[in-house]
């Protein structure tokens, strides 16, 4: 304690002044000193400060501060833990979203594939059916043409005899005579040629 003696000394020198300044008002108080510089009450103040502050310090150190510090630490831990958990949950949610999107993409690709296959099949079936129908129609057409050709040929064959008969009848009616069948046939042939 190197301050106290210094103040004790300064107090001695200022004693007179303070006394005269405050002396009038200080009637009835033990000493006429300016109270903070009155060394007679130092021991009491030091003792009671040591007791009260010492007990206060011990009380805070043993009882109060560990409790407040514990509460704060517990809260900090709890917040950190909750944040961790939240981050973990977010991760899980992100993973779930990613899996869902992947599945969705896969399903979409599969659906496209199926649709494509169905379209291809339908198309090839339609093509096959059409070609068959076309073939059948072609065949029918060809049949019909051959029949028409044969009928035409037959008809053309009969044209000569019909013309001979007709010519004979016409000649008979016009001329009234008889003409040899072979003559008529030659004439028809010449006309047809």
């Amino acid at each position, binding site marked *: *304690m*190197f*301050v*106290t003696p210094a*103040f004790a000394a300064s107090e001695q020198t200022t004693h007179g002044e303070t006394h005269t300044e*405050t002396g009038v*008002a*200080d009637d009835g*108080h033990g000493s006429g000193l*300016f*109270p*903070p*510089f*009155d060394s*007679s*009450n*130092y*021991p*009491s*103040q*030091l*003792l*009671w*400060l*040591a007791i*009260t*502050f010492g*007990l*206060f*310090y011990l*009380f*805070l*150190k043993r*009882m*109060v*501060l560990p*409790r*407040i*510090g*514990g*509460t*704060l630490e*517990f*809260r900090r831990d*709890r917040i950190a833990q909750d944040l961790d958990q939240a981050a973990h949950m977010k991760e899980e949610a992100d993973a779930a979203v990613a899996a869902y999107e992947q599945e969705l993409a896969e399903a979409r690709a599969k659906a496209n594939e199926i649709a494509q296959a169905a379209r291809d099949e339908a198309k090839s079936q339609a093509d096959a059916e059409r070609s068959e129908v076309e073939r059948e129609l072609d065949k029918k057409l060809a049949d019909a043409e051959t029949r028409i050709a044969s009928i035409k040929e037959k008809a053309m064959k009969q044209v000569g005899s019909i013309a001979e008969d007709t010519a004979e009848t016409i000649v008979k009616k016009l001329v009234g005579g008889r003409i040899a069948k072979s003559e008529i046939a030659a004439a028809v042939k010449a006309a047809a040629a």
Partner: protein
Amino acid sequence: MANDPIHQFQISKWIPIEVGGLDFSFTNSAGFMVATVVATGAFLFVTSSSRGLVPSRLQSISEIAYEFVASMLRDSAGSQGMRFFPFVFALFMFILIANLFGMFPYFFTVTSHLIVTVALAMAVFLIVVIYGFWKNGFGFLKLFVPSGVPVVLLPLVVAIEVISFLARPISLSVRLFANMLAGHITLKVFAGFIVSLSSLGFVGVVGSVLPLAMTVGLTALEFLVAFLQAYVFAMLTCMYINDAIHPGGH
């Protein structure tokens, strides 16, 4: 007597005790020390008892005080300084509540007595010196030898550093004491003007509005000073503790 601005600092004995010729009476000063300690301790104890995960209002007051002092100490002295946290916290709360108690009319202001602030400052000073030597040995003396000073100037600089180090308890104690003393005297003087002016009749009553306004303003200022001085005291304590832990690091 009512207007005497010094009267509020009088020590009056409540329970006279005398041991070996020294006066250890339980005085009004001791009474207010006990009141400060009991009120503060009880408040902190009760509000922290619920240990709520979500703090109640009162609980968060004690937690804010805790965090305030803890961050102040950690910022200036690092995590090693946290071993002094109970001391700094007790110091801050004691000075703060003693100052605030002094703001009640007719209450005694414990910190307006030089011997109290000197005792607190000496406690800080001795802790710094003893812990500094205990932890660093003679390396603690590096505190007085700033690095990068030319050898020629070294004796002068060391002398200045030593003097400024020894002046710390004086400045620490006188700052708090003088602030509290001067503030309370000023408050009392201006409040006294109101009374003396009012006794002068109508003009005096009208005129006393000025000191009244001044008293109101000073009261607000004194509440600020009460907090600020406790903060300054605790802050400087943190910085001195930092010197004890890291003597070469400034």
